[in-house]
């Protein structure tokens, strides 16, 4: 009975940029009167865009992990290392704390982001049990951790300038780093294009289907 009021059902929406409450015109989109950003009830094509970016990111994860990201040449010897072998080198050198940081930032975080986004999308599109609070926690983790995976690339850019002594010691970037940079950007864009309000739309709609005395659970939802 005492259901939460949703803004979209009242013809209102919150501007995603300045959080001003805006009355939506019939066309469903307008400009925010306060900050001038585009306002629409839900992000246009959010699910499709997030799927596309997530799949792109997952595909790019393969070259990012298989191609070498960095080559350290020391006294004319050295071989290209991928992300994983770089972590293993750090671990075998006894620097397991740094190894853990690099592992989390450049392997665990991208994978977790892609898996988390896929979970969110599947929960929305398939009739799977959905706990909106857990989904929101997942969404916040996914959108908060993404930037830390650039750590490895920053380290490469520092080392390339720092260790540049010709035959004695040299660090060169590898083609995997380009793929990895793209993965990070793509997953950050994917997290941004996901509209968390869809989680609550679906949750309300399913609850509305369960209770029979409900009148307009899924009204106005494209």
């Amino acid at each position: 009975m005492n259901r939460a009021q949703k803004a979209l059902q009242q013809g209102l929406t919150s501007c995603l940029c300045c959080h001003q409450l805006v009355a939506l015109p019939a066309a469903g989109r307008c400009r925010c009167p306060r900050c001038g950003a585009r306002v629409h009830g839900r992000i246009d094509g959010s699910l499709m865009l997030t799927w596309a970016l997530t799949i792109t990111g997952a595909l790019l994860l393969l070259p990012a992990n298989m191609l070498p990201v960095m080559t350290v040449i020391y006294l004319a010897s050295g071989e290209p290392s991928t992300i994983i072998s770089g972590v293993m080198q750090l671990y075998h050198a006894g620097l397991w704390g740094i190894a853990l940081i690099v592992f989390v930032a450049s392997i665990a975080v991208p994978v977790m982001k892609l898996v988390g986004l896929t979970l969110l999308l599947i929960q929305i599109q398939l009739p799977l049990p959905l706990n909106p609070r857990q989904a929101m926690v997942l969404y916040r983790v996914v959108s908060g951790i993404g930037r830390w995976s650039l750590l490895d690339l920053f380290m490469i850019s520092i080392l390339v300038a720092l260790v540049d002594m010709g035959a004695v010691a040299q660090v060169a970037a590898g083609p995997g780093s380009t793929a990895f940079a793209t993965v990070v950007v793509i997953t950050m864009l994917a997290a941004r294009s996901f509209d968390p309000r869809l989680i609550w739309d679906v949750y309300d709609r399913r609850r509305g289907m369960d209770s029979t005395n409900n009148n307009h659970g899924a009204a106005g939802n494209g």
Partner: protein
Amino acid sequence: MKPGRDKTPTRWQRACHECDLLLTGRLAPPGQKLLCPRCNATLHRNAHNSIRYTAALSLTGLLLFIPSATLPLLRFSIFAIGAENTLLNGVMSLFDAGYIWLSTLVLFCSVLAPLGKFLLLAFICWGSGWAFLDRPVGAAVRWYQHLKEWGMLDVYMLGILVALIKMSDLGKMEVEPGLYCFVAMMLVANLTTLSFDPHAVWDRLAQRRAHRTRAATAGGLP
């Protein structure tokens, strides 16, 4: 009597931007946070003296940016030969090696975005005092929201630490004065992000507009 800034004649004053719940409360009391009762999203964080602190901090950040971008951060030497690293020469070496996309990304996330954030915030906070800058300030707040997550000074700092530890067994690593400026700039950047509250700026603009319309109607009466 009422300033006509709320166009919608309802009792709702804002909608949660993450779950679309309609709420009556609009702003948090000073020094506290307003959380969404349904999804726990932070709706508004009211920092003390937001505009003044942000103005001072962003100016500090701009000043600190000059030494941290020009002075060397680290120095690495093997035997007698050494090389230095600044914020920009890593980008330059990557660019020269043909990694254009990677170097652009590193340049954007570690130099341009933090600089842009400082410049925008300084402009917003100092410029919101003048009426003729209302529109540019509104646009600047919007750009700041887009730029916010791309400034990654803290990630870069972690990259420096990893590089420092990783290379310390190959040769001699020295910390140069630029690094201290960089650390200070990173701390100031985070403090600036924390102290900035866009609602304070919007309120300031709205109050001035209400004042102006009141003055105009009062002037038009006699």
